[in-house]
């Protein structure tokens, strides 16, 4: 007899019949009836009308029946809160049952009933169960605390359950420990600020001990929890790594990935000179490779993570290229991901093999895969210069196959190869032109047109080719139209005599007959350029272009670091930070890799250690995005004065001018702030003569600290803190502190470029604040800041800016501009920087 019969009763008056059966005296009949009810519930029928009758069956010795009734309760209690109260007594009684299975069942079910009234009654039984003698009950109770917290967080805190839960981390039973860790992590996730897990070397030691004994799932909870810890120095990091490494041999892929996460994160703290560092690198490769023998979904998760790991530490898998060769029966998502990793691992050493593989892939049947393979060949050419020629000839072979999508894809990548190695492979253009007619995808058409325009002087019939595209101008996509416009203008500038008519035609098509603003604007710009100064036009349009970089699709370094902290999770699969796909603020804590803090070699990198913010902590960004921010947002920051300022009093005025009208809105109420030219920053290099001057008067010693001697007056200087994380500022990271030296205040800034492009044109502006703090000189970054470069700047401040009371009083809102964007952050300054050293209080 099977359960399927319960699903088939569809007679009329069913509910009525069930009611009668539920109230039957016979135990067997009762149980059958409850099973029918559950079956109806499972297929979505509303059987809530039977609530009292089902609850009546709750008091039974039969465990199976009890489970079914509990199941029913979980489903319907919320819709019948008043009646659910009827069940409370039985729950409380069951929590005292001599059978631990029943005690656990009761406490597990109660936590799933999301009715406020019931949760009140839940507290006492839960408290007992948390201290139950049976570990099975304790581990269930630990999870119940997390459930209850989800319903009523305040209640859990008031009842002191969190402390009991913390105590369970020291429980003798590993499964209880694991569940306590899981519950605490879950709760901590919704309270990023609370120091709930309070990890310290002692508790870490307990967790590491439990790690060896608990179930595979428990190991995952513990490893994920360990990943949130920041060891105090490299020794502690190493000792944790040593104890986590054995997990790499676990059969469960999830355990392996969580262990990899801990190791990748803590490795950041180890010096590369350590022997252990090299050992660890070697140990990581085999487990990662073995993950590729798991089920396809797990393979995919592993590959997405390997993709991150390869970008972060390419040395781990650099010799393992072959394992990423696709198998014929790999699912397509695995194939595509493997391909991506192959390109990342491609180097001069293995390029021949990779190319041979890619060429095979390009003849497969799956269109998406073939396209990506062709693109990969192009990427190899750009990445490994020595292979470029071979890649181009491979691509030409592929074009000869005349398979439509292969040809189009090949042309798109050849365009990129031209952009990387100009004037090297134009001999292939003739072959490309032969395939002109078969191109029907916009991207391929645009690429072809670009090539024709770029090399117009070497293609005899360039004008005919372009003219042929022009016929259907309005049916083309925007991408193609723009490309066509540019290409024809290029052609005209190269061969002005023959193509005047053509250029007229395209300009009028673009400016008069098109609705697309981009196209019109570009058309007008070219038109005016050509009509006012053709020589200038030539210089502009035919200017030498920068080469494209080797790696075009790398993940931005700060994002990559964050994603490394999320190995194994959805974020690592999406390659997006959790904030991008988790709705609401819950559970979104910005994570970052730990800074390197060495125990023995504290002198090694003084600027690194204190600058990093503690990971897992929300960084101090402007708290309320209110009206104040509005003011700042309207600011139109201009470029900074380049070069050292010339005349003393004009500097600030100059800065004001450059910073534009936005300043008026910021300082509008108190114009005296602008008028008085007070302090001026002489270029740092001119002041070293004043270094020794103690407490002097006059302007120059105000700024003597800019020359870098920091210990003159012994005033306390807080270590630099990260004010603006790179995540929030398109790769610009700012950390800083405030100092006061011999009567002058300054803001010591450290700007780090974590983006992939050069940053220039820095400027800074403060919002009105409680003490009128304002920059006394423009922010001077003399040279462009290239990627991964850090520059230290001391910005002199004065207190003559506009005053407005801030909350808290020492809050300062700052806008920083560079060539990329304007960024905002706020920080608190220590009040002592405002105090004068002689103890007399100034008027202002």
């Amino acid at each position, binding site marked *: 007899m*099977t*359960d*399927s019969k319960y699903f088939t009763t569809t007679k009329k008056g069913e509910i009525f019949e069930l009611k009668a059966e539920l109230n039957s005296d016979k135990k067997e009949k009762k149980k059958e009836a409850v099973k029918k009810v*559950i079956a109806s519930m499972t297929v979505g029928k509303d059987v809530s009308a039977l609530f009292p009758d089902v609850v009546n069956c709750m008091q039974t*010795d*039969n*465990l*199976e029946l009890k*489970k*079914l009734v509990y199941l029913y309760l979980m489903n319907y209690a919320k819709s019948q809160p008043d009646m659910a109260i009827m069940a409370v007594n039985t729950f409380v009684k069951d929590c005292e049952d*001599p*059978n*631990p*299975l029943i005690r*656990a069942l009761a406490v*597990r079910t109660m936590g799933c009933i999301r009715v406020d009234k019931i949760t009140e009654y839940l507290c006492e039984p839960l408290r007992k169960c948390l201290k139950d003698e049976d*570990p*099975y009950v304790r581990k*269930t109770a630990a*999870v119940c605390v997390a*459930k209850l917290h989800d319903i009523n967080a305040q209640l859990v805190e008031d009842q002191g359950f969190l402390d009991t839960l913390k105590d369970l981390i020291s429980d003798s*039973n590993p*499964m209880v420990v694991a*569940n306590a860790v*899981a*519950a605490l992590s879950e709760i901590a996730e919704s309270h990023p600020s609370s120091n709930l897990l309070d990890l310290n070397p002692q508790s870490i030691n307990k967790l590491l001990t439990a790690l*060896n*004994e608990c*179930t*595979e*799932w428990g190991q995952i909870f513990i490893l994920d929890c360990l990943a949130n810890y920041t060891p105090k120095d490299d020794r502690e990091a190493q000792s944790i790594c040593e104890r986590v490494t*054995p*997990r790499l*041999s676990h*059969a*469960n*892929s*999830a355990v392996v990935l969580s262990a990899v996460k801990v190791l990748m994160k803590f490795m950041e703290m180890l010096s590369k000179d350590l022997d252990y560092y090299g050992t660890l690198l070697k140990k990581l490769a*085999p*487990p990662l*490779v*073995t993950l590729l*023998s798991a089920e396809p*979904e*797990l393979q995919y*998760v*592993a590959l997405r993570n390997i993709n991150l790991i390869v970008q972060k530490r390419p040395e781990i898998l650099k010799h393992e290229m072959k394992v990423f*060769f696709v*198998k014929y029966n790999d699912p397509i998502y695995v194939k595509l991901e493997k391909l991506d990793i192959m390109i990342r691992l491609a180097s001069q050493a293995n390029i021949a093999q990779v190319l*041979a*593989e890619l060429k*095979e892939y390009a003849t497969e049947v799956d269109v998406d895969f073939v396209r990506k393979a062709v693109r990969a060949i192009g990427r190899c050419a750009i990445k490994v210069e020595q292979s470029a020629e071979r890649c181009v000839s491979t691509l030409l072979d592929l074009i000869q196959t005349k398979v439509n999508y292969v040809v189009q894809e090949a042309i798109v990548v050849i365009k990129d190869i031209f952009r990387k190695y100009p004037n090297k492979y134009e001999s292939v253009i003739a072959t490309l032109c032969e395939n002109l007619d078969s191109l029907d995808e916009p991207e391929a058409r645009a690429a072809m047109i670009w090539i024709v325009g770029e090399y117009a002087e070497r293609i005899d019939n360039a004008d005919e080719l372009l003219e042929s595209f022009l016929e259907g101008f309005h049916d083309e996509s925007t991408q193609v139209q723009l490309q066509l416009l540019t290409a024809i203008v290029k052609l005209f500038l190269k061969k002005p005599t023959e193509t005047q008519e053509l250029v007229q035609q395209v300009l009028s098509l673009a400016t008069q007959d098109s609705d697309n603003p981009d196209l019109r604007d570009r058309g007008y710009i070219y038109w005016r350029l050509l009509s006012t100064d053709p020589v200038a036009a030539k210089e502009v349009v035919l200017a030498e272009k920068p080469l494209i970089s080797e790696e075009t699709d790398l993940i931005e370094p700060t994002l990559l670091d964050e994603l490394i902290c999320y190995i194994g999770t*959805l*974020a690592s699969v999406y390659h997006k930070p*959790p904030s991008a*796909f*988790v709705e609401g603020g*819950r*559970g*979104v804590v910005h994570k970052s890799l730990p800074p390197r803090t060495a125990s023995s070699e504290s002198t090694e990198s003084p600027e690194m250690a204190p600058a990093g913010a503690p990971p897992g902590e929300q960084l101090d960004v402007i708290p309320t995005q209110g009206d104040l921010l509005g003011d700042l947002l309207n600011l139109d920051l201009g470029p900074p004065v380049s070069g050292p300022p010339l005349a003393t009093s004009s500097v600030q005025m100059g800065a004001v001018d450059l910073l534009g009208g936005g300043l008026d809105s910021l300082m509008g109420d108190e114009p005296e702030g602008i008028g008085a030219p007070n302090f001026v920053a002489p270029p740092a290099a001119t002041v070293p003569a004043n270094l020794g001057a103690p407490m002097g008067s006059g302007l120059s010693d105000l700024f003597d600290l800019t020359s870098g001697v920091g210990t003159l007056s012994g005033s306390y200087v807080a270590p630099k803190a990260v004010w603006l994380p790179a995540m929030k500022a398109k790769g610009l990271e700012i950390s800083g502190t405030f100092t006061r030296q011999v009567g002058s205040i300054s803001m010591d800034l450290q700007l780090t470029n974590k983006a992939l492009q050069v940053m220039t044109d820095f400027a800074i502006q403060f919002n009105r604040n409680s003490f009128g703090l304002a920059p006394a000189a423009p922010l001077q970054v003399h040279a462009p800041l290239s990627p991964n470069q850090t520059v230290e700047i001391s910005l002199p401040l004065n207190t003559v800016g506009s005053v407005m009371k801030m909350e808290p009083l020492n809050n300062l809102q700052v806008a920083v501009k560079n060539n990329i964007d304007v960024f905002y952050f706020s920080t608190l300054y220590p009040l002592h920087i405002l105090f004068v050293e002689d103890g007399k209080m100034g008027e202002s």
Partner: protein
Amino acid sequence: MSTIEHFMPLLMQREEEGALTLLLSHGGVHFLWIKYSNLYLVATTLKNVNASLVYSFLYKTVEIFSEYFKELEEESIQDNSVIIYELLDELMDFSFPQTTDSKILQEYITQQGNKLEVGKSRVLPTVTSAVSWCSEGARYKKNEVFIDVIELVNLLVNANGSVLLSEIVGTIKPKVFLSGMPELQLGLNDHVLFEITGQSKNKPVELEDVKFHQCAWLSRFNND
């Protein structure tokens, strides 16, 4: 309309568009799914969950259901709905996987629907003990061990016939009938084979990576 009801339409739609991905999402809910014969096993989440844990768990569920019902298909799910509820209850609590060893589960969730009497029933100590894969106090008349070795050979050859990649993924599956809970050591010896085939002993077989079942002492293996 409950969340899961969005899943099938979404899946169909994506399949039709040819844009089926492993991760589907709808209104902030992410679906992580696997397909087993004609069944979809779906996990839903709102958060940034540990995806590898979810997929491992889904596969584990398939494994356990298959051991319980022999064949896991639509019919067996209908036939065993009550047991499935019971099993899910033990397998996972508040999205934390719990006991997933089918041997242990079978000792207290039995096919026929157990009728435990008050007082007599107890939680098996194995459920929460460090040894969660076999129960204590096992006694066998005849102590014996059967070992299955299953090897999977992967070979990748290019069009010219040269071997690009060759690997053996082997599994050793012991079936143990030993009384008590003895600790066993497993050693692999390649000398015998080499002597038979007359190959030189200088080049031993190298295992690039080994993975162990939960029951192995990983840290001890690592140290030796």
